[in-house]
């Protein structure tokens, strides 16, 4: 009887299915005997609590499923005859969850750009990139066949081809958490390839694919040791340059191919590049780009980088987005949010808590709030188990996130609707509605977000997967005495409450503008104007809207002006550091290739760096961020103002001329890198000169080819960011700052640049510049030099502290610079050395750290002196600025007070208090913990994961290996 009914039902199903779906389903499958019989095609879930979508519940509700699709949902439905009825009393049925990022590997490590410091040094050669500057090194992309020149750019890779494995134990683990579908993504590389949206069933893989190529995955992944570190790109800024270059190339290739359609003769001349072609869907709207930036600042960068190409990415959160909620307000990018939170370490001794910084503790205390912070900034959020050391922590951590302000609706949407929409399958997944796939997550004992509730089943396209909770035999568990259990529960609840209550403050609370009067009148100060006005005793200065309006013995009044009485104080322009490597995220060098003109400091400004505050406290207001000197052409430099508290974009000095760092001598010829570094061109000063001439000639020809193409109306040559930057040098649009020591190389460099019609803006260090001061002056270059560093390597054995004064007297514009996050805190004291050695007047010497560096950077029309029309960047000193007793009391930038001595001290005291409170909390929770970590467990160390944004290494030019 049942057989007849079944046949009848099947017919009906096929009819129904025909109505529901646009295609005709499979013919009835008759399974050979001995194999499991076909499941019933019609099922009704009855008596359960049906969560149709976040915020909409049917209690109880009925869901009718036919052939894997939802046929009907409602409170009072008629259950079709012949339906297999599933009693769901006491169970909650959610739309099947979607894992937004699943990387099938044994472990699934985070990309982490927070710590991209040098880790190991092998034999550095120019490998990987299509650059033939090093003899004996051709293109080696590490894989055979056509592809991108950079081995780690593999956008053509498709997860669907080899990563969809229903037997993957990871899939079972995901089902145990209630997931029914997942974005399976390729691992490793910068452009990693395309992910597939799959159903997490144990079934024929061909039937599991919902979308074979759903996202393109990009990660700001820097090389980690071994041979990879010798290949371009090895630094974070190199990775960003590669991303930008690749996207440009893909667009260009698309244009070129389109053009070839109308000019078939030309098509045969074009190269075929599968990598570039694989990126076209990004602009065709069929694939979104998922970027794993690895750190909070890089997330900000990723959004900007994508928008350069008109794209809105999805971002994999690093977990520390709470640091800058201001960055995410109004951002359209979606966030794939892991719920991996730092866990408290067990430290060997009590004293070892010394090693736990306030920032470690803050990161721990804030972490569970991260999803809520993102959501409250208005961003779309989806969850992933990616990055969890143990997937079992997923629900526990999710509960913490909810306790920290994320609503249950948002959390549910983050598992269902949001990822469905991103994948473009919102008509199939994400809700329990007629016409959707029958994917459910079935929970017993309350809400999914209560870890005490158990996940009993997942339904995937109508097929039921009973999970371990559903398979328990019901054997009585050994339980404690009721009192003891209650006590335990209470203790655990107290601990949870303790964990949930955040006591860490936001890092943004400690920084930023202290005062910003619209107008300010400074009176009774000794003004060191660094202009023709000289030193004005008991002078006045009027400031409005961030600009200096008047400077003199007495200036006109302004009714709005606050008065700042600086009696007994000395006031100078804000100090300017012409050469610094501070506040750079990741490596300072892209040390692989001899020319890395394409890499940009502005991509990796670390606005969060504590060292900026210390420098501000020494009266510094402007600073020139440069690459190191590991290669003849280092990359594009950047000028910042020390507006601490502002983000990387706001901290940049907008409108400052573009710059490029070049370098000569020992570092670029790898003299002090060790005996293995002997095969990269150049190895001699002769080679350095020849190399620079080669790249400049290449840039000239590149521009010519572009112009030629424009003239003939054909597509331009392949865009090349390296040559683009160098072409700007030739056109006088980018200022050259060249690291140089010896007199011979200085003269050779000046000659070379003159031959290309380029005037060098500044020689960096230029320690032997005093020997050829007249030649430098005649060329018109300036020198940014050390006050007195010498003898740290052979080419600086002839450096003398009198050099600054000598060159100044011979007509060279000389600046004293720090090249060090320490010296940058006391450039006034460095300037005083020019009084001692060489006998400059104090006024002249002060200009070495104010007006002159401004001139070298081409910003002297805006900063460097106290003159009407200039930015109101100034410093209040306790004594004359070059007096060794001088202490910086206040630092103002753009007419705003950023540093004040007493406030800084008070802040430090507050931070110490905050740390003490956090430490007490951490100790409480670490000692009472039951589910704590093994002492030897690696995860204990994960608590200390270095956040590069807070990592201030003291770096200078001698750090040639990035």
């Amino acid at each position: 009887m049942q057989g007849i009914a079944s046949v009848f039902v099947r017919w009906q199903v096929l009819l129904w299915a025909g109505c529901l779906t646009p295609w005709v389903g499979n013919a009835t499958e008759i399974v050979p005997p001995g194999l499991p019989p076909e499941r019933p095609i019609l099922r009704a879930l009855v008596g359960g609590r049906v969560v149709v979508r976040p915020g909409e519940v049917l209690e109880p509700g009925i869901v009718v499923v036919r052939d894997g699709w939802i046929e009907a949902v409602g409170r009072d439905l008629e259950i079709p005859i012949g339906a297999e009825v599933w009693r769901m009393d006491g169970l909650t049925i959610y739309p099947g969850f979607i894992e937004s990022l699943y990387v099938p590997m044994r472990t699934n490590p985070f990309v982490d750009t927070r710590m991209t410091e040098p880790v190991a040094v092998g034999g550095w050669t120019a490998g990987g990139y299509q650059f033939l500057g090093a003899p004996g090194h051709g293109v080696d992309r590490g894989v055979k066949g056509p592809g991108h020149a950079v081995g780690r750019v593999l956008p053509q890779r498709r997860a669907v081809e080899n990563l969809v494995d229903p037997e993957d134990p990871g899939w079972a683990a995901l089902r145990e958490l209630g997931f029914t579908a997942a974005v399976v993504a390729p691992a490793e590389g910068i452009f990693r390839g395309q992910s597939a949206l799959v159903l997490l069933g144990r079934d024929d893989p061909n039937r599991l694919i919902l979308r074979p190529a759903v996202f393109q995955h990009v990660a700001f992944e820097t090389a980690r040791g071994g041979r990879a570190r010798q290949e371009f790109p090895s630094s974070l800024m190199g990775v960003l340059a590669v991303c930008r270059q690749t996207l440009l190339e893909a667009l260009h290739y698309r244009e070129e191919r389109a053009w070839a359609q109308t000019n078939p003769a030309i098509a045969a001349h074009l190269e075929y590049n599968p990598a570039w072609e694989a990126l076209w869907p990004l602009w065709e709207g069929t694939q979104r780009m998922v970027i794993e930036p690895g750190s909070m600042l890089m997330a900000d960068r990723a959004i900007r980088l994508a928008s350069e190409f008109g794209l809105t990415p999805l971002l994999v959160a690093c977990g520390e987005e709470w640091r800058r909620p201001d960055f995410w307000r109004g951002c359209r990018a979606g966030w794939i949010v892991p719920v991996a939170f730092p866990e408290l370490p067990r430290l060997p001794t009590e004293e070892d808590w010394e090693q736990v910084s306030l920032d470690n503790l803050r990161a721990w205390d804030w972490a569970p709030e991260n999803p809520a912070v993102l959501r409250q900034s208005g961003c779309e959020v989806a969850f992933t188990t990616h990055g969890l050391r143990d997937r079992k922590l997923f629900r526990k951590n999710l509960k913490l996130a909810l306790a920290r302000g994320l609503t249950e609706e948002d959390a549910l949407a983050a598992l269902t609707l949001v990822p469905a929409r991103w994948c473009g399958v919102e008509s199939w997944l994400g809700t329990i509605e007629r016409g959707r796939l029958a994917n459910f997550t079935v929970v017993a004992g309350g809400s999914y977000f209560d870890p005490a509730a158990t996940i009993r089943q997942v339904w995937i396209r109508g097929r039921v997967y009973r999970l371990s909770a559903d398979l328990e035999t019901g054997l009585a568990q050994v339980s404690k005495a009721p009192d003891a259990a209650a006590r335990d529960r209470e203790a655990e609840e107290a601990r949870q409450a303790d964990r949930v209550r955040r006591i860490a403050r936001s890092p943004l609370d400690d920084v930023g503008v202290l005062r910003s009067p619209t107008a300010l009148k400074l009176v009774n100060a000794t003004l060191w104007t660094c202009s023709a006005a000289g030193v004005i005793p008991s002078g006045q200065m009027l400031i409005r809207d961030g600009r200096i309006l008047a400077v003199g013995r007495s200036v006109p009044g302004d009714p709005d002006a606050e008065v700042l009485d600086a009696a007994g104080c000395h006031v100078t322009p804000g100090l300017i550091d012409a050469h610094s490597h501070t506040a750079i995220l990741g490596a300072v060098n892209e040390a692989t290739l001899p020319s890395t003109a394409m890499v940009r400091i502005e991509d990796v400004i670390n606005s969060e760096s504590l060292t900026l505050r210390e420098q501000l406290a020494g009266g510094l207001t402007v600073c020139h961020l440069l690459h190191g000197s590991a290669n003849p052409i280092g990359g594009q430099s950047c000028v910042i103002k020390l507006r601490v508290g502002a983000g990387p974009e706001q901290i940049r000095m907008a409108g400052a001329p573009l710059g490029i760092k070049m370098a000569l001598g020992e570092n670029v010829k790898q003299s002090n890198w060790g005996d293995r570094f002997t095969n990269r061109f150049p190895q001699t000063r002769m080679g350095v000169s020849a190399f620079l001439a080669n790249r400049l000639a290449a840039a000239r020809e590149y521009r010519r080819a572009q112009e030629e193409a424009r003239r003939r109306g054909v597509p331009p040559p392949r865009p090349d960011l390296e040559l683009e930057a160098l072409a700007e040098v030739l056109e006088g649009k980018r200022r050259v700052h060249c690291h140089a020591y010896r007199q011979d190389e200085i003269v050779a460099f000046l000659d070379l640049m003159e031959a290309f019609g380029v005037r060098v803006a500044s020689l960096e260090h230029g320690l032997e510049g005093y020997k050829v001061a007249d030649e430098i002056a005649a060329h018109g270059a300036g020198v940014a030099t050390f006050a007195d560093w010498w003898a740290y390597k052979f080419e600086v054995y002839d450096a003398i502290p009198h050099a600054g004064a000598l060159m100044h007297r011979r007509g060279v514009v000389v600046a004293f610079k720090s090249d060090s996050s320490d010296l940058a805190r006391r450039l006034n004291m460095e300037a005083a050395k020019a009084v001692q050695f060489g006998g400059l007047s104090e006024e002249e010497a002060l200009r070495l750290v104010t007006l002159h560096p401004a001139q070298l950077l081409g910003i002297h029309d805006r900063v460097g002196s106290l003159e009407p029309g200039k930015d109101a960047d100034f410093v209040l000193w306790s004594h004359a600025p070059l007096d060794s007793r001088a202490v910086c009391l206040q630092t103002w930038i753009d007419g705003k007070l950023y540093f004040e001595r007493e406030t800084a001290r008070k802040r430090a005291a507050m931070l110490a208090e905050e740390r003490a409170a956090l430490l007490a909390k951490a100790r409480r929770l670490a000692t009472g913990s039951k589910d704590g970590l093994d002492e030897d467990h690696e995860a204990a160390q994960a608590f200390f994961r270095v956040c590069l944004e807070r990592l201030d290494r003291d770096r200078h030019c001698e750090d040639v290996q990035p």
Partner: protein
Amino acid sequence: MRTVSPACALIAGHGFLGFWLCVVCVICSGLRAQEQEVLFSASVVHTVQGPTLKPGAILVRGSRIIAVGERLEAPQARKVDLTGLHLYPGLFALNTGLGLREIDAVRATVDQREVGDFTPEVTSWVAVNPDSELLPVARAQGIAFFEPVPTGGVVAGQSGLLRLDGWGVRDMIVKAPLALHVFWPQMNLDPTPRDQSADPARWKSLVEQARERTAGLKTLEDFLRQAEAYARGRGSDWSPAPTAPGGVPVWEAMLPFVRGERPIVVHADEIRQIRAVLQWAETNRWRVILAGGRDAWREARRLAALKIPVIYEHVFTRPARDTDSYDVHYRAPEILRQAGVTVLFSTGVTDASLVKNLPYHAAQAVAHGLPAGAALRALTWEAARCHGLDNQLGSLEPGKEATFFACSGDLLDVRTRVERMWIRGREVSLENRHTRLYEKYRQRPAPQATH
């Protein structure tokens, strides 16, 4: 004049016996009554231990100061007029790499770091290059004495105190050995997660590291106990003689230090190290000096109670913790001083080329609260006192060595220039590699415009 003084110096290096020989020397030189007296008169004389004299005068006979006063009458004396200048005693650069390093990046020119954990028999002064171009540069800043320090391992070796004048090391030695240098084992744990570590194969858990840390401290303890046992076996009247039969070089070298005759300089920066050093110092009777001392300000009171001087290297080190105020290390010397700790300054144990900036490390502390007098004493008399040399060096007082310099103003101000200098009564040249190159290129004629 040259013949007397080096002898004095050598003898002075040998303590008690030296004292009597010195007396004999002084008597001898007194007998040579014709020895020239020189009267220096300056606008300001910083005697360091006495009042600052404005104006002031110093009368020198041979290598010794015989009188100091506002106005001295010495009709026979040759006059040196230093009007407009300040006179200071020669400065001490303790805890340096001077003499042992020439060009940091050229390995062949560096002789500071030896291999092995326990090498007390390594002595720094035997490797000082008297013709190092770096020495005259330091001297031109008023530095008269320096202490080259060996740095490798845990018990790295012995330092000596040398004068920045002499034809060779023998002439230059003031006192050798001066101190034993112990580099306290690191107590910091490396919490880098395995996935972030440079070499995952060598990654170690915190517990494993803590075990190794304890082992390191025990090894040092054992070493010192063995050295003490050896010393007891030798008896208290035995003078170190590694060449004598039966003498074990490593233990012979330890004798003056485990007997408490000469100080042990312990290099430690981090708070856990410093606390461990304090705990260790409480249990022994040795003379301990702390060098480095970055976090010493946090244990100022205990350091004062144990009378452990601190050679502070970190005035210009950036704050170590994210809760520290930006000026924490600028203020540290004053915090230590107020607690009663003797503070000295160093530009860093591996620094050689910028030892010349030593006064400015002290000056930065002065700008942030340290009294100028205390800073000056730290650079002179206190440094001498630490090593038992305060009866001969470190201040401008009668009977002391005539080693001083004249400069254009306050020593603690960067704008000040050192103009002239005398070591043991003899004027020394302030010329150096820097001034030679400066003079050479200052006189370079403007090149002809040929192209």
